[in-house]
């Protein structure tokens, strides 16, 4: 007689519960999809899907409400932290987070993000910095690197007339209301794993009621950078990381 080994299946990878599975509108090589997945995994691991609320921005991730299987709203361009404040203040038991691009957060919405951090608003912010305005076709953002060519700085960003990159982690970490501020990058599997940990920590900061938390994720935009996806990842490492150093900018333990 032949002994038949029972066939066992082990799931090693699947869609996070907090994602709907709707196909995304993102370009090939875009990092928004990776960032979404990390957020969804963090939500699953912390068991907060049923009380999580997404405030999506105006930008390429305006459709994020469609990809996350959680209650969601879409804010006006730059106003996600204000809208999140309204949602959170009337229901402090919910876990409210914004997901914002660098044009949204560091340009038009810089007042709202600064004041949300200053108030120590108990929110989490996922800040995706791809150094350009993706959705409108790759114009210069406040985060665009010196010399970097964009569709509205065709000769490269001249710091004498177009100013210098605004470094949000450095800025916000100065505020007493900020509890956890960190910058990570999505340019390699190792960095992606670190990014995930920071996102979990940011949500934990909110769950524990310790105040404002933000994780900045350096991300590529191959379409608007006019690069191959792999080259774009390399470019994050060689060009962006030196200007936007990775690390924890603020970890306040007490609330």
């Amino acid at each position, binding site marked *: 007689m032949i002994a038949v080994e029972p066939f066992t299946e082990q799931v090693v990878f699947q869609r996070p519960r907090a994602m709907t599975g709707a196909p995304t509108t993102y370009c090939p090589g875009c990092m928004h999809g990776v960032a979404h997945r990390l957020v969804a995994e963090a939500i699953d691991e912390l068991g907060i899907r049923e009380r999580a609320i997404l405030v999506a921005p105006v930008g390429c991730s305006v459709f994020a*409400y469609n990809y996350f*299987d959680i209650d969601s709203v879409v804010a*006006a361009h730059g106003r996600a932290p204000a809208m999140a404040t*309204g949602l959170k*203040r009337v229901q402090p038991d919910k876990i409210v987070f914004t997901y914002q691009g660098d044009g949204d957060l560091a340009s038009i919405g810089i007042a709202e993000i600064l004041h949300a951090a200053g108030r120590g608003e108990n929110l989490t912010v996922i800040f995706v910095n791809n150094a350009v305005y993706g959705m409108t076709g790759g114009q210069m953002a406040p985060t665009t690197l010196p010399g970097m060519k964009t569709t509205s700085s065709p000769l490269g960003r001249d710091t004498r007339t177009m100013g210098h990159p605004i470094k949000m982690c450095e800025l916000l970490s100065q505020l007493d209301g900020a509890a956890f501020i960190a910058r990570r990058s999505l340019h390699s599997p190792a960095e992606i794993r670190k990014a995930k940990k920071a996102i979990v920590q940011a949500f934990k900061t909110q769950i524990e009621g310790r105040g404002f938390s933000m994780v900045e994720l350096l991300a590529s935009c191959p379409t608007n950078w006019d690069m191959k996806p792999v080259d774009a990842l390399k470019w994050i490492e060689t060009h962006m990381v030196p200007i936007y150093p990775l690390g924890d900018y603020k970890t306040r333990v007490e609330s």
Partner: protein
Amino acid sequence: MAKQLMKGNEAIAEAAIRAGVEAYFGYPITPQTELLEYMSKRMPELGRVFLQAESEVAAINMVYGAACAGRRVMTSSSSPGISLMQEGLSYIAASHVPVVIVDVMRGGPGLGNIAPSQSDYFQMVKMAGHGDYKPIVLAPATVQEAVDLTALAFDLAERYRTIATVLLDGVLGQMMEPVELPAMRALPTTPPAWAITGAAGRAKNSVVPFRMQADDLEALNLELQRKIAEIARREVRFKEYLIDTTSGSTDKAELIVVAFGTAGRVALSAVKAARQKGICVGLHRPITLSPFPDERLSQLADEARGFLVVEMNAGQMLQDVKLSVGGQAPVRFYGRTGGQVPMPDDIALEIEKLDEMTGHPLDHKIEGPVALRPVDRPARRQETSRTSRN
């Protein structure tokens, strides 16, 4: 309940609290600030949310967020602050969430001044932000009416999931009058089914102020228009003083003054004075500026000899009155700008001019705005009909 003496701004705040407002977000601006200050004290006392926002832009988006959570929420501001809120108001309209806005209007344009005005009529009634929609706009003329309309604003906002605005001027905001406040209402216990409260034990909800596909966006627009039409059918409110009971004359008014808010209140004094002089004049005071009482005005125009619109602006509601009257009778205008409040005597003079006009109404189609200070101008017919018919 006994009456108490209260300032307009504070009375509105207390009325909102009694109507069950759960969260207030705002930014200081004269002549509205007492409302915010009152809230800063009362809301925390009651365990409700008060937050002084970093700007009106932030305030309206906080309001938007709390409204998405299905909570009763409001903000208040004055003209320049309302200008800053326009984008947010448009998002709120697109999202079908209920909010209450109080606009205590001041003189414009620009920084203008802090004196009373009605020059946000266009801003609130016609175009509270980009896109095709209209908020409900309620215009009180006394502090008591401001209290009553504040409560109504919350009811209407929730019934139609729309923006309801209480539109008043700095006179009413700053004036003290005896008011009777309504009883404290219980707060709602469960948020509505569409609210953003976390997808616990149900499919997720989303509140989204856009539709990428033209078909879908048109459907959203049609839904908004259906709602606006329903509101227009059911919610028009106005007050009229067409028969003078004090002078002993029971003649129905042949001349109609149309004015809202403080201008309406002053106009009533002028109407009464003119009645004493034997002029058969009455007042129509719209309470809902949106929906506008167009059908009623059109009805009045069937019989009226002429209309006089009085506003504390350069002629904004005037356009709606003209549309309603539809050329059936001449429509004159008297307005003051810059934060000036029209005086009863000035209005009375305009009523007399209207009374002097004879002949077929279509010979007197007066294109407003014409009047500055009437005392500065000769009150001759040739003068007032100079722009007639072309």
